[in-house]
């Protein structure tokens, strides 16, 4: 099984290259246009979605649901087409991003000579040169916006591709031949782990579509993850009434073994090499997740050489479910009763602990480094916090520190959410001794400032209004500058004092709210 994704600009020759490549390899060819037709037949209004993403617009709830449905449909459609055939060549927008976590996809970006593109449009559309140029720029811009809006990626970033083919200096036939040779390299053959990931993505996407189609749950905004038949559905508090129907709606889906429904406002990503359910860090994660109403997603990051399929590059593997029985709805509270001890790995037991607290967002194992990790994380999932626990522990203390720092910087550049290490988690998000000392110090400064200002009101008001003692003092010290000097001094004093008051009292207020767990 092989997947080749060709990303192309309008009139760049990518379509004919993809068709030739598919013919040469005897693979199926799937275009963006085919995908859109299929989605439209399913009742998804792709045109409306496109208009909303390419024009400056606010996504209404209805459009958000439409977007979720389309993303699920695109993933499911690509998975099913891929699994039915020996190989698939997809040409169109953001192909490989539809299958987040699947490695060994050959990702190609096709470029063409600008003049050539303009000439083709002028001939085909009978447009003048200026209109053709404007057409290219408008369509390319729209596609860029679409990819960013739907998958949070930049189409023009070369890091998103394995190869960039420039058709300005190569004809389509030769480019296709070059790609055939590349496609035969072992780096671009799917591994059994990729197939597992593909099945997980397919099951999650089908579950999402099933929920969208059923009238009892169609209005719920949910995130779905699947791990070897175990499906985790996270829903927002305002959809709690619809959540009770989730298990019934999903029942009977091929490949579904178990369904967990977790109410969550947001997601926290926890990356670590080894999870311990009894550790302080785990307790802190539960506390923060409960406070924020968040689901915690676990990623066990293992070194590449520990990958099970001997010498493979990146593989992403789901944690084994504990039981294969379908469990009924439990009101958003996951229950581990009835689990048989098929897998008592620390990852599984940590997931169990989170599930008992109703905070589980699923878990996976990723073998490799930063690149494999990024490949495994769905960029469309909005994380509120990323926590990095101990990683690469076998490499020694200095190496662990370096690896943690590097990973933190790497993830910090890619995520909007704060990325913190395990050591920083408690001090930043939970009320501790350091918070108490800081709050105490800030409270003392605040009290002193209030005492000074309110205890000397007459003095302060004369200063602020630049009259009385202050006017006399200025006139005495700077007789030639009475027009501007008082104003300048008062401005500077206000400018310096206000941030101090705001910071000190703000720290006290936020510490108190942190203490009563109401952030």
């Amino acid at each position: 099984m092989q997947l080749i994704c060709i990303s192309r600009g309008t009139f760049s020759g990518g379509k004919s290259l993809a068709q030739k490549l598919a013919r040469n390899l005897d693979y199926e060819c799937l275009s963006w246009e085919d995908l859109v037709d299929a989605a439209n037949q399913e009742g998804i209004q792709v045109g409306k979605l496109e208009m909303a993403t390419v024009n400056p617009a606010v996504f209404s709830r209805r459009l958000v649901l439409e977007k979720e449905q389309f993303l699920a449909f695109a993933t499911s459609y690509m998975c099913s087409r891929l699994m039915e055939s020996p190989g698939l060549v997809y040409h169109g927008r953001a192909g490989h991003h539809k299958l987040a976590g699947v490695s060994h996809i050959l990702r190609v970006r096709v470029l063409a000579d600008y003049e050539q593109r303009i000439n083709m449009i002028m001939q085909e559309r009978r447009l003048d040169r200026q209109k053709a140029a404007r057409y290219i720029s408008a369509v390319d811009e729209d596609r860029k916006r679409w990819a960013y809006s739907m998958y949070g990626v930049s189409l023009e970033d070369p890091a998103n591709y394995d190869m960039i083919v420039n058709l300005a200096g190569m004809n389509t036939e030769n480019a296709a031949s070059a790609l055939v040779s590349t496609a035969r390299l072992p780096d671009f053959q799917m591994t059994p782990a990729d197939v597992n990931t593909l099945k997980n993505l397919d099951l999650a996407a089908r579950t999402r579509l099933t929920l969208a189609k059923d009238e009892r749950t169609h209005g719920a905004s949910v995130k779905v993850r699947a791990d070897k038949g175990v499906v985790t559905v996270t829903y927002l508090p305002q959809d709690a009434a619809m959540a009770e129907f989730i298990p019934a709606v999903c029942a009977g889906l091929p490949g579904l073994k178990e369904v967990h429904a977790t109410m969550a406002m947001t997601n926290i990503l926890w990356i670590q090499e080894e999870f311990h359910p009894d550790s302080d860090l785990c307790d802190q994660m539960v506390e923060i997740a409960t406070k924020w109403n968040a689901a915690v997603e676990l990623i066990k990051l293992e070194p590449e050489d520990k990958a099970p399929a001997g010498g493979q590059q990146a593989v992403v593997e789901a944690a084994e479910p504990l039981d294969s029985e379908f469990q009924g709805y439990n009101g958003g509270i996951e229950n581990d009763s009835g689990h048989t001890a098929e897998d008592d790995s620390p990852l599984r037991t940590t997931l169990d602990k989170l599930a008992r607290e109703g905070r589980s967002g699923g878990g996976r194992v990723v073998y490799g480094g930063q690149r494999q990790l990024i490949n495994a994380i769905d960029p469309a999932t909005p994380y509120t916090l990323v926590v990095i626990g101990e990683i690469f522990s076998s490499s020694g203390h200095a190496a662990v520190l370096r690896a943690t720092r590097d990973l933190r910087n790497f993830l910090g550049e890619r995520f909007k959410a704060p990325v913190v290490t395990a050591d920083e988690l408690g001090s930043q998000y939970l009320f501790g001794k350091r918070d108490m000392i800081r709050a105490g110090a800030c409270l003392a400064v605040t009290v002193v400032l209030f005492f000074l200002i309110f205890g000397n009101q007459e003095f302060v008001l004369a200063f602020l209004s630049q009259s009385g003692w202050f006017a006399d003092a200025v006139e005495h010290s700077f007789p030639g500058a009475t027009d501007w000097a008082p104003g300048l001094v008062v401005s500077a004093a206000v400018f310096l004092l206000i941030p101090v008051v705001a910071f000190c009292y703000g720290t006290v207020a936020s510490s108190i709210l942190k203490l009563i767990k109401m952030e």
Partner: protein
Amino acid sequence: MELLLGRFIELDLATCLQVVMLGAVGGVLSGFVGSGGAFFMTPGMMNLGVPGVVAVASNITHKFGKAMMGSKKHGEYGNVDKRLALFMVATSFIGIRVAVMINSALFGNADGHGAGGTAASNLYISMIFILILFFVAISMLRDAMKSSKEGAGPSMKISAFISRLYLPPYIYFKVSNVKVSLWVILVCGLATGYLAGTIGVGGFIGVPAMIYIFGVPTAVAAGSELYLAMFMGAWGALSYAFEGFVDIRLAMLLYLGSLVGVYVGAYGVKVVNEVMIRMVTGLVILLCVLSRAVAVPMYLRQLGLISMDPAWDPYFNNISKAILFFAGISGLCIILYNVIKAYRQRRRIRSTLIEARAMQQTVSTTT
């Protein structure tokens, strides 16, 4: 002290508590709406006898520190488009400067710093307040009613219209992922600055402009506006302090309420649905507008534009104050009701979990 009372009010314990309460209600509302709060605090201070220009000056000074704390938090979550905010800063400074000059001139021109000057600036501030916030409230209520019927988001008519106009040069903002005409940004910056400087509610123009005109995502719009508000607040505070209108005592008392209130309001957003947020905010603003409108005859009389018995002034002021406090407190109650409900619901879920776990442990021990 008495020489200063034409500009600054005397603060006894009751007045101090009222200012703290204004800050608390304004803070909750600002956390709930995502911007502003001044729409409640500025007229509230005016009802306490603070001259309009001092109320605006103290409010913009208070906004400086609050925005500094808020934008730091938003920045941690990647919700600040610094580039967009900085493009708006230049013209917003011009807007603020114009506002400060007009306010200072009105306050100082009538008869020095006496009642006439105060009335002129109060009337001017109230009229701008009524005009702008009436439009904002009606738009919010219309949107909320439309959304409750159709489940759609805010109207995108303005955005669609602006996007049809071709006004080069266009600037691309990566964080917001939008491309906006430089001229549109400059005009919006100017308007935001002018309103922030005049009535202290720049956020009511800045945030909708970013959402409806630029097409910026809502969270980024709120974060970027706070970042912009930090600069506008600093510039406004400097400008008004230079003119001698900042009452630092009021700014400090406002902090006491607002920095706690803003967290409660932000928590409320998580548990109240979007239509209700717009409906509550729209109604509160509309009542604030009504409260200001009730005070207008008093200022007209003080300026000698209408003939009215001066003994009626306290009645107008008290009715205006009552409407404002009713608006703020009822809005606050709705938000707090939902916050407490959500808090209790969370505790109930936790206790259900503990019971379920205890039962489970009992079963496993028995077997």
